[in-house]
């Protein structure tokens, strides 16, 4: 059977691949959206922090024989801690200034971090094996689905919706949202707002590192893996609406699917399609699909 001259089997497999890539976009853009929504910082170091997550997993495995599952928890914690230190020592001083300062600082940090990794590990990168329990795959009839990719979708979506739930539906989330809306009053009620903000940045950064560990067995772990991805992820955040939590998740997955379809019908355009959509969305809804104008 064919749809527009493309066999349905091929179409199905491309949509599935789109969903997998979409989950990566979702988890990365979620971190960015949280940081922007609650701290007003455009975190350009997100790609570098994603790369750090992947490298820590690789280092843990090759130098200390620490397996994937431990790394999946430990790497985000470590990189999150690194984020906390950044927030306490540098970002904190920029909250009252224009967005541009935060962007420049994090961009500079990204260049430094990537430079250090490039110097240490070279540009070709390192290979991280798929963990034993998730190697192999399932024949779906229309395609061979590697188990690991299926796991990526499950893990990414669980973390995404868990985060959304925490921010939108719990008391802690309510404090967070209130703290960004009106810090003085929330502080007056006895809640430590600066600590909340530090924690939020650390969490956003940890999400990037989590995505990095998820990506390690799929992509070659190399110092520039983040900077190649980050521009698309920024576009996802802009399309979803800067700072919108649910927007970033839904748009991430949606754009993954659109990109997958583009690869079927006109592969040459698959790198631009996200940006074309961004232009259209900005023209029609400048605040993004889920943003509040």
């Amino acid at each position: 059977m064919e749809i527009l001259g493309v066999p349905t089997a091929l179409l199905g497999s491309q949509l599935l691949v789109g969903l997998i890539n979409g989950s990566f976009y979702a988890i990365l853009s979620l971190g960015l959206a949280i940081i922007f929504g609650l701290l007003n910082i455009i975190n350009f170091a997100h790609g570098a922090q994603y790369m750090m997550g992947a490298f820590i997993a690789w280092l843990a495995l090759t130098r200390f024989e620490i397996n994937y599952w431990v790394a999946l928890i430990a790497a985000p914690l470590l990189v999150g801690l690194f984020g906390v230190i950044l927030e306490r020592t540098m970002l904190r001083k920029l909250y009252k200034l224009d967005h541009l300062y935060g962007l420049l600082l994090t961009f500079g940090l990204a260049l430094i971090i990537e430079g250090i990794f490039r110097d240490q590990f070279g540009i070709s990168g390192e290979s991280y094996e798929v963990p034993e329990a998730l190697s192999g795959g399932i024949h779906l009839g229309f395609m061979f689905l590697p188990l690991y990719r299926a796991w990526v979708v499950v893990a990414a979506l669980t973390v995404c919706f868990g985060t959304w739930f925490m921010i939108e539906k719990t008391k802690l989330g309510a404090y967070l949202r209130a703290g960004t809306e009106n810090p003085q009053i929330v502080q007056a009620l006895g809640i430590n707002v600066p600590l909340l903000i530090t924690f939020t940045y650390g969490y956003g950064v940890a999400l990037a590192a989590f995505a990095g560990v998820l990506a390690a067995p799929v992509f070659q772990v190399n110092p520039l893996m983040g900077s190649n991805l980050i521009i698309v992820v920024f576009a996802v955040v802009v399309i979803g609406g800067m700072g919108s939590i649910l927007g970033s998740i839904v748009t991430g997955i949606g754009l993954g699917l659109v990109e997958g379809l583009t690869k079927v019908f006109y592969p040459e355009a698959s790198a631009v399609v996200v940006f074309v959509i961004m232009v259209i969305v900005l023209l029609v809804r400048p605040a993004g699909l889920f943003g509040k104008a």
Partner: protein
Amino acid sequence: MTIKKAVSIACTAALATLSAGAHAQISGGVVKIGVLTDLSGTYSDLAGSGAVLATKMAIDDFIAKEKPDFKIEMVSADHQNKADIASNKAREWFEREGVDTATELVTTSVALAVMKIAKEKDRIALMSGPGSTPITNEQCNDVSVHYTYDTYALANGTAKAVTKQGGKSWFFLTADYAFGQALEKDASAVVTANGGKVLGSVRHPFPGSDFSSFLLKAQASGAQVIGLANAGADTTNAIKQAAEFGITPTQSLAGLLMFITDIHSLGLKSTQGMYLTEGFYWDLNEETRAWSKRFFGVQKKMPTMVQAGQYSSVYHYLKAVKAAGSDDTKKVMAQMKKLPINDFFAKNGQIREDGRMVHDMYLMQVKKPAESKYPWDYYHVRQVIPAAEAFQPLSQSRCPLVKK
């Protein structure tokens, strides 16, 4: 510049000119070699600091063995794979710093830009890193040498061998820019000429990171061989993901532009059985092993063909300067083309009138993990491709310098 500094430079220059009179006719009394390479970007592993090290080794060895009566100096710079940065640096070197030859020049756009400046300033461009064939065809000139490899030799070697061994149907995964398309075109021609068939191709954006969609298309084509007409991280990611999606070993992959550093970073598990063409392998014989181990001692990595070729090309250049008794571009170029190249890198290598250095190439097959006995033991040498067959024949040349 302070007056003191200016005076001291003037004095040094005057002294240098005076002392030069006593030796061979070397401008400034010093032969100055510039290594213009990628020290920080995509090609920094296959060329980069290793190419600088290889140049140093060549100069040291030359001084120790040939005892020249001229001084040799080296300068190096990062061109960041940008033609404009490379052009500015080359100009500065040639005009103000008395550099005699700009070497390495990985990345075609850089190479083409520097070749033009070298011609204009009457200096020599020695290229070990870049791969495109226009360097010795449409864009060729008489002050340039293309030393180590080119895409014709690689595509020709790999595509021919794989097709002859039964890989008759091909599908290409091509990076969507001039280089990828040229590679696909070269390889397709070879496949068809050897009785194979090209079933199709898919063009992926450059650079890409997820190739699974494209690989699934290649899988659906049912081709026996998937030709990777891309390079660097694109190739390594595609290979990794092909294994993940169970495409290999049912269908086999052929990397059309790969280096030992790519195999090293991917590991043998995902690359085993692949064919590729190389101009050099550290573990070929006693000579290559001896040199490579010295290189490894400093760099902690085995040399790529680009780095080994860099050593050989600089050494050959210095030999030509000595033989010519001058660093005059015309005289040195004449000697470089006249003298055969016999060292650990090449046997009976010869620089043709189009600037192409022709030497034997090697068809390699990547070992299985169990076959690899020691670090960097990666290849079976499946075939030595003689110099005459490895490179584009002069009869097909589009270089105006070639008299037909």
